[in-house]
């Protein structure tokens, strides 16, 4: 299946992704996880070239249909990106609460609807989003987890947990996870700033809550990933030192026993 998809054209690539569905995302990851460039770009370039080309061939009314076409194809592109994630439902959940809270704040605030209901629903959505990102999507999408523990003497310590093998994390998951958190934070920071300069003190607590929740999640995961990288480096260094030591020791033993060291150490020094 993977070889066939590479053989087809860019337009067919989209359709093939739609046909295969979420269950085969694991197999789709294999050809896509190439070292050069993110997996998203080839698909987006494909959508960019097909839509104007198709419009040019038909020669129909340019304005509305091309915008509609662009929106539809970008929505498809986004949907395909989510399908390529290794846990599509989790990725959607990660983004869904954020998007819901964002749009609710934006449009309910503009329409000047019932303030209390909007506020309460927004806070609840933000709280669910915080909990979901902290407890579910973090460990399933990027294999990281952070929490705070209080020791016997009353001091608090931050604990981090990470997956042993970072290659298990797919690039799509990684991007969806981190970029959606960053973008969400920036948007809510804008909202906070605008509420501040408009002196609309009604909405300030909500945006303040949103920013504090986003910040704590971003900070927690950032620290966790730093800790994970540090642990990996420590493990790698430990393995290298161990390999060197064992090479040296076996060479020494071999020499002591009268054999040439090269026969003993060569396979150990291999990759």
């Amino acid at each position, binding site marked *: 299946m993977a070889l066939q998809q590479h053989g087809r054209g860019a337009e067919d690539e989209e359709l093939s992704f739609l046909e295969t569905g979420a269950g085969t995302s694991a197999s789709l990851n294999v050809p896509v996880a190439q070292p050069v460039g993110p997996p998203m770009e080839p698909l987006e370039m494909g959508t960019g070239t097909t839509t104007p080309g198709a419009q040019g061939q038909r020669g129909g009314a340019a304005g509305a249909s091309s915008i509609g076409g662009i929106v539809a194809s970008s929505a498809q592109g986004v949907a395909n990106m989510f399908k390529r994630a290794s846990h599509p439902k989790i990725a959607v959940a990660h983004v869904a609460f954020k998007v819901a809270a964002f749009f609710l704040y934006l449009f309910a605030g503009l329409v000047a609807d019932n303030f*209390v209901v909007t506020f309460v629903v927004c806070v609840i959505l933000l709280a669910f989003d915080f909990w979901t990102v902290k407890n579910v999507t973090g460990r399933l999408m990027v294999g990281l987890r952070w929490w705070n523990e209080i020791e016997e003497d009353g001091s608090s310590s931050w604990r981090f*947990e990470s*997956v042993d093998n970072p290659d298990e994390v797919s690039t799509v998951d990684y991007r969806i996870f981190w970029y959606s958190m960053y973008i969400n934070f920036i948007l809510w920071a804008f909202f906070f700033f605008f509420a501040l300069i408009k002196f609309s003190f009604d909405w300030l607590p909500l945006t303040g809550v949103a920013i504090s929740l986003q910040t704590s999640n971003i900070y927690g995961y950032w620290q966790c990933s730093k800790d994970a990288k540090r642990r990996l480096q420590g493990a790698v260094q430990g393995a290298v030192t161990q390999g060197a030591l064992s090479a040296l020791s076996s060479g020494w033993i071999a020499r002591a026993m009268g054999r040439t060291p090269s026969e003993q150490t060569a396979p150990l020094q291999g990759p």
Partner: protein
Amino acid sequence: MTETSQHDAELMTLDEPVLETIKRDLKMIGAKLKFVFMPTAKSEDTIAELRKWDLWGPLLFCLILSVVLSVSASEDQGSTVFACVFVVVWVGAFIVTLNVQLLGGKVPNFQSVCVLGYCICPLVLAAVLGMLWNNIFFKLALVAAGYAWAMRAPVVFMAQLVSEEKKALAVFPVGLFYLVIAWMIVII
């Protein structure tokens, strides 16, 4: 050694199913509610339970209180009341925590906010029941009962954190905090 074994035990949580996480958190919330309604304990379990702080309880009670008070307020003041109560509860909890910390009590921020937030529960109950009958004496009685009940748990919690002579200094702001909330419930 204990840290690594604890760490290993927690390592299981990376792969646990989502339902397990939800159940674990719900059990935590339930344990804290038990402490609020029956603060008998100096037992080790309760203190260990309290250490696992979470802010769901405070958020829930704060929201319920704000909604109840904004509903019983007059029409044009509804949203202001809501925002005020929300801010007062959260900022008040943090300031009381700051006070205890400045007095030398070694309590982490969030644990104290957690306990204070959970102990608003009796006052919230009083506010909800007070909506049934709009009689000032009924409300006063309810709120007084709620206040007395709400004060039991945090007093126990805060008192054990500071030294003997500073106990009153630590407990007084807690009393003031709940008094302000009780007063808001009565007048709105």
